Structures are given as C-alpha cells and as structure tokens.
C-alpha cells in the first residue's frame, strides 16, 4: 500500500516537473523568453530589465531554478494585456472554475447512475436503446457546440435561461449540463457493462435466492460493486471536466480560468497562458492522485499489489 502511494505520488510529481521543464525548454529553445513575456511595444530598457530578472544570461540550470522558484511562490509575472500580476487575475477566477466543475460533477452523478442502471436492468428493451443512444451521442458532440445549441434553444427561442456570466442558480444549469454531458456518456456506458457483469455473478444469484427484493439486489448489492470500475477512472473524469471546462467557459462567458486562458490565447498573453496551463495541470494531476489513493484504500486488491 505504502509502496503504491509512494509510486503514484512520485509519478505525479515527475509529471508536473516534466511539464515545467517542457514549458521552460520550449520557451528558451524557440527564441528570447523575455520577448514572449513582454508586450510588443515594450522598450529596450524593459526588455533588458526583464532579461536580467529572469536571468537569461545565466546558465540553464540556474535559470530553471529561478523559474521554478517563481512558480512555487505563485509569482507568474504580469499579464501583457492588463498589466496586472497574473496571480491577482487567477485569485478571482479559480473559485469560479471550481464551482462550475463541481456543479457539472453533481449533474454527472445525478444523470449517469440512473441511466446506467436502467439500461442494464432493462437490457435489450427500448429503455436500454434510449440510454445507450444518449451515451453514444454524448461522446460525439463537442461540448462547445452542445453549449451553443442549448443557448439557441433555451435563451434565444424560449428565453428561459441566461446565456452568459455568473449569477443565481439558473446561470449554472446550461454550462454545468454541457460540461457534464460527455462524462455522463462515458460513465453510463461503463456502468452499464460492469453492472451487467455484476448481475450475472454468483453473489447476486445468492442475494436473489435469499429473497431480497429486486430493488435491493440492483441498487445495493450490484451497484456497489459496479461503481468500483467508475471510481477507478475517477481521475480521468476529473481531468476531462477540468479541460472541457475551458471550452464551456468560453461559450457561456463564465468568469473562470478557462475564459482567462482563452483571452490569453487570443491576445498572445503568454504569462497568463503559462500560469493557467500549469495550475490546471497541477489540479488535474493532484486530484487524480488523490482519487487513486482513496481508491487503493477502498479496494484491497490494489492495496496488496
């Protein structure tokens, strides 16, 4: 168990280090890093200053040390566009993104578990076809297009829901749904197949022979074991939600990190892009580490490996 946790933690740290080295090297191999960090109209003096503070004239190892030191202290430089420190911009945006991902995750659980259970229980009937159909469709529709369709229907045609920004409960419905739909599809399919397998097993037969109600057999005994396969991939789902969140935030003008990243791309604001990518990657990698560790506690088979 300990060995497993140490291995996974080392992997996570290495992944983050590798990402930082890639950013660091890419920026330096492709030209003057100071130029990337400054607005195009900056004077020579500003360039010299920045070169000096970034230590571009020093050996690569020292430069990397400076670069990492800045990152760890949370100093990402100034945004080229708004001239304010990137860390200030992030402070306001990060909680909003987390709220959106959280809302999407709630919707995912609320929809995919009933869908997965129903399509397994009613295997081969029209209910199964419908649920699997929704699941297959969900994996083929790009989230940002789904967001636009929802806006088209519920804002433009019906006028029921607000299409942009943050506010009350109604502001969450469309962004969270479009963000979650892809994951709903993935979990529904996974849950269906693992539940079918579980329903076919010996312990379920025993539970039925014992005379338990079908409801209890499915929702308590079979589902609990099938959910393991879902939890196994929990880290992947979080990664998907965080990255797809960027696209959804752009469609719904959600004041989160994704929108910040998008503006960073559009205005070639490299300090912003670098910071958002690094932080999102850190969130993805560390949450998937936590999920894996929690999972190892829950499932003795992993623990003993």
């Amino acid at each position: 168990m300990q060995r497993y946790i140490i291995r996974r933690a080392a992997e996570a740290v290495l992944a983050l280090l590798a990402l930082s080295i890639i950013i660091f090297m890419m920026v330096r191999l492709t030209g003057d890093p100071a130029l990337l960090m400054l607005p195009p109209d900056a004077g020579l003096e500003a360039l010299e200053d920045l070169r000096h503070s970034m230590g571009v004239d020093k050996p690569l190892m020292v430069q990397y040390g400076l670069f990492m030191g800045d990152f760890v202290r949370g100093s990402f430089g100034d945004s080229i566009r708004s001239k304010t420190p990137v860390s200030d911009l992030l402070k306001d945006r990060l909680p909003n993104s987390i709220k959106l991902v959280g809302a999407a995750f709630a919707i995912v659980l609320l929809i995919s578990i009933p869908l997965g259970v129903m399509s397994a229980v009613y295997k081969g009937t029209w209910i199964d076809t419908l649920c699997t159909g929704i699941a297959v469709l969900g994996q083929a529709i790009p989230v940002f297009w789904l967001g636009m369709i929802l806006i088209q229907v519920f804002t433009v045609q019906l006028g029921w829901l607000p299409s942009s920004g943050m506010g009350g409960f109604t502001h969450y419905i469309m962004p969270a749904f479009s963000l979650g739909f892809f994951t709903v599809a993935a979990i529904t399919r996974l849950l269906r197949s693992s539940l079918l397998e579980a329903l076919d097993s010996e312990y379920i037969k025993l539970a039925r022979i014992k005379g338990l109600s079908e409801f209890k057999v499915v929702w308590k005994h079979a589902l609990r074991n099938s959910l393991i396969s879902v939890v196994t991939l929990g880290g992947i789902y979080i990664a998907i939600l965080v990255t797809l969140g960027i696209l959804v935030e752009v469609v719904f003008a959600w004041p989160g990190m994704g929108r910040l990243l998008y503006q960073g791309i559009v205005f070639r604001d490299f300090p912003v892009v670098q910071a958002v990518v690094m932080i999102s990657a850190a969130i993805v990698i560390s949450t998937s580490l936590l999920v894996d560790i929690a999972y190892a506690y829950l499932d003795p088979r992993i623990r003993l490996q």
Partner: protein
Amino acid sequence: MAEIAREQEILTVKNRTLTKVTTALQGAPLIPLFIIVVFAFAALFADVITFHDSTLVILPDRLIPPVGFDGGSWSHPLGTDPLGRDILTRITYGARVSIIISATALGVGGGFGTMIGLLSGFYRGKIDTLLMRLADITLAFPLILFAILLVMVLGPSMLNVIIAISLVLWARYARVIRGEVLGLMERDFIARARVSGASDFRIMTRHLLPNVMPTLIVLLTLQVGWVIIVEASLSFLGAGIPPPTPAWGSMLADGREYVSSAWWVTTVPGIAIMLVVLAFNLCGDWLREKLDPKQRSV
C-alpha cells in the same frame, strides 16, 4: 483442360475473396461506414466537388441562410458565414484538414507508441520500467492544455497541432500494446520461433506485431473521433489551425457571436463533427466486438 482448370481456380479464388469481403462486412454498421466513405471522399476531392473559394471573403454575400429558408438559394446550399464564404465548401475542405490531422497524428503517435510497446514488452527489465513510467507521466498530462501551450510557443499551424497531439498520443498505445505483448510472450509459438533461431527483430515484426494488430486497429479507429474533437477544440480556442484555413472547430468559433441571428453558421460544422465522430466510434465498437473477443462488452 489445364487452362479451364486454372480459370476455374481463378474464379474460385475470386469468389473466395468476394465471400471474404462479404463475411468481413457481416453485421457492419452500414450507415456509419457510409458516412466515413462520404467524409473521405469529400476530403480527397474537395477541390473538384466544390464551386466556391474556401477562403475568399465576399462581404456582400455574408450570412445567407441555407436553401429552404428565407433568402437562401442553391448557389449556397448550406448558407454562408459572417465573411460571405460558402459553408458547404468550407465544410468539405475542413474534412480534409480533419483527415490529415487525425491520420498523421494517429500514424505517428500510434506507430511510435506501438514500437515502444513492442520493445518494452519484449525486453522487459529496466527499459520496460523506464518506458512505462514515461508513458504514465505522459498519460497524466491533460492533452488540450499541453497542446495549447505548445501551439502558443511554436505558433499555430497544422504541423504544430499534429506534433502536440502525437506527443501525448503514443503513451496509450505503448501501454496497451505492451500489455498484449506480455501475454503473447508466454505462448508457445514465441518460444518455438526463438528455438528455430529467429532474431529479436523478426520475432517482434513477424510474430508479435501481427498478433497485436486487431487491438491496434480497434484502438486507432476508436481514437479517430477523439483526435477530431481535440483538433476542433483547439481550433475553437484559437490554438489550432490558423485562419483562414477552414477547420471545423474554427468554423464553430466564427459563428459563436451569431448563435441568435444565424444559427446555421455553427449548426452545420457541429453536425459534421458529430456525424463523423459518431461514425468512427460506432465502427470502432463494431470492430472491437469482431476482432477482440476479450474486450467484448456484455
């Protein structure tokens, strides 16, 4: 006599190949296959089958609705975009962009990953541990974020999008193929090949590779749709194919401001992405059932 016999032989061979093809296609999802054929055809012959320039801006023609809607005409069957470009033409050229990117990224990433998987599973030991750790680290990267970063530094271009996707893609292939190879290495035919003096290279290319082919084909098919969505997402964010080249993702981005006034600008590329991704996913599912009984879903 001999000639007739030979002719008959040729005929039976022909028949056999015909039956082979028909049995191979048994139970195949025909509509998805048809969509893929149309998609490939559009990509190949984009310059022959379209009548408009895919990038030329004609502002007086902007935002013409599709045929059948008020103001629509057959000269622009699917309407025009905010810059007056024919959407059908751009969709057709966009298919070419999608196919080039997914084919190259899957070819490079999948090919490299398969090679790593073969080496790793065959030699085991330290190389294996090192390569697999590297694969796990790569799998931990969120692909879209990584690609955005790379494209920001190197500049947006088709080549850089392909590089970014391939750099992440190889890891899954390496993992899956290695797993298969580990299983195969226990089998008798590998031991026999060894005894008969086959070189490492020969065992890997002639004995292992053909046996991992079904898994590889299934994985490749299932990932075409995924690569298309990743590319569309990157182009949508402005970190993919630079304008004015028509890519489905950037077409969606062009229409974002016009969702309320000109729905067709986003609807048409959206449907195109959905149909093609759906087609590849359904074909992948079918191939998996057919080629890979182990992974057969219940």
